[in-house]
């Protein structure tokens, strides 16, 4: 299968990036090195190409009211010009995707789903929209997205002439070199930052300007270590059609009082009964790095769960992981991870592992 390429593919290869298949896209994993790129985002500013992510427009009379009967979080918690973390569940409460919904006005929203789930999101929304007069359009080919993240991100946006300084999770429309652009105070790193959506044709020029303004190109390797330090879920690891928001600790991202949303009945029952497993963080007591699918054992050796994500934390300089654990395991407990046959001790934590600075 031929891997898909973002508008920045030749920029990445020119920079000598290590490229790899990510959800069917040929994406940069790292340029100079994951740890240096991670540190640039935590302490200075970095730029990620996230043009592989989806872009879906929802339009029609009452589009927001309709969408609010489908997605789990309550879109009425935000107003026009604001973005919201949201979940699209199936009727069994499993998560088809976690996504950001941008509320433009009452009749217009757009949605950024994960790269590999974009088709499933479009299909599920199309199925739900049948007969409603709402139209769902997949526009991912037309746009690219840059994530400028880090404490110095405002200076970079100001230098390239884009709006900055607006509130966390709000967005602004702009013109950049005669092209429409949308600048949102969102991100996946735990640092203050922006995600810029612009037509595919202008994305390479915008990338060059952002890099010239001092942003360090950062790859998906650093994106993963940064989000893991924050405890942010990654679909396919901490969320899936087999993992519900109740299990993943995302009850805050569900509008429980709404009369309808996909998966409502199952999730309401599961919440009342208590989930059979819960997402927890683990931090290494000694030198060890947890990796996905490693078994987690209690101190007495019985199986209590599984690692869903794990890495070396460049900030803490220790192994950290996200796990789905038996609800009897609590914060502060010690568990053991089977690291390729070695029994490594970890402390159960409540993420984030590192304080966020998104605001």
């Amino acid at each position, binding site marked *: 299968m031929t891997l898909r390429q973002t508008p920045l593919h030749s920029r990445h290869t020119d920079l000598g990036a*290590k490229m790899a298949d990510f959800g069917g896209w040929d994406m940069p*994993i*790292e340029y100079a*090195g*994951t*740890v*240096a790129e991670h540190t640039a985002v935590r302490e200075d500013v970095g730029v990620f190409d996230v043009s592989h992510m989806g872009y879906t427009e929802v339009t029609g009379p009452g589009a927001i009211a309709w969408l609010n009967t489908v997605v789990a979080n309550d879109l009425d918690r935000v107003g026009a010009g604001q973005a919201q973390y949201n979940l699209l569940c199936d009727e069994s409460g499993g998560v088809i995707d976690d996504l950001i919904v941008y509320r433009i006005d009452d009749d217009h929203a757009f949605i950024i789903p994960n790269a590999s789930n974009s088709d499933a999101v479009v299909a599920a929304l199309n199925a739900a929209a049948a007969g409603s007069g709402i139209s769902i359009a997949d526009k991912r080919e037309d746009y690219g997205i840059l994530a400028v993240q880090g404490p110095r991100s405002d200076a970079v946006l100001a230098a390239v002439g884009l709006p900055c300084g607006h509130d966390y999770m709000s967005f602004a429309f702009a013109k950049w070199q005669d092209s429409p652009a949308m600048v949102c105070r969102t991100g996946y790193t735990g640092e203050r930052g922006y995600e810029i959506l612009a037509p595919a044709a202008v994305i390479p020029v915008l990338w060059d300007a952002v890099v010239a303004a001092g942003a360090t190109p950062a790859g998906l*390797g650093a994106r*993963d*270590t940064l989000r893991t330090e924050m405890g942010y879920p990654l679909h396919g690891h901490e969320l899936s059609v087999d993992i519900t928001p109740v299990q993943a600790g995302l009850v805050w991202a569900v509008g429980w009082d709404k009369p309808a949303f996909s998966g409502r009945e199952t999730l309401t029952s599961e919440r009342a009964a208590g989930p059979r497993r819960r997402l927890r963080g683990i931090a290494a007591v000694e*030198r060890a*790095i947890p*990796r996905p699918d490693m078994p987690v054992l209690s101190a007495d050796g019985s199986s209590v769960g599984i690692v869903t994500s794990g*890495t*070396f934390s*460049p900030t803490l*300089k220790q192994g950290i992981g996200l796990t789905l654990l038996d609800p009897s395991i609590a914060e502060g407990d010690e568990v053991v991870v089977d690291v*390729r046959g070695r029994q490594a001790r970890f402390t159960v934590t409540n993420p984030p592992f590192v304080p966020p600075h998104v605001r």
Partner: protein
Amino acid sequence: MVPEDARYTAQHEWLRETADGTVVFGITDYAQDALGDIVYVDLPAVGVALTAHSPCGEVESTKSVSEIYAPIAGEVVRVNAVLSDAPQTVNSDPYGEGWMVEIRPSGPVDGLLEAAAYRALIGEG
């Protein structure tokens, strides 16, 4: 980067013989580059007898883990203690300060690739 004064394995280890008959080995520049930022190096204990081409340790980076294979058979006489606190030395100087293990060979030092053959293996030159 494949120095002429070392010999190599297809599992991306290099080794050099020392003046007093021991052998020092580590992983190649190609191997460290493929791994990315190295964050842990687990080495065998001094005194352990290594079997040729068998795993004797691990190198772990932010994104993956790889086993270290003994290039030849022998007894471990010294390991590079620097790597427990500064594993990134393997990235910055794989053939020098980033050496890993010194062994006393229990047999002939053979079955290895010369620099030119290793270069061909990794598609350089």
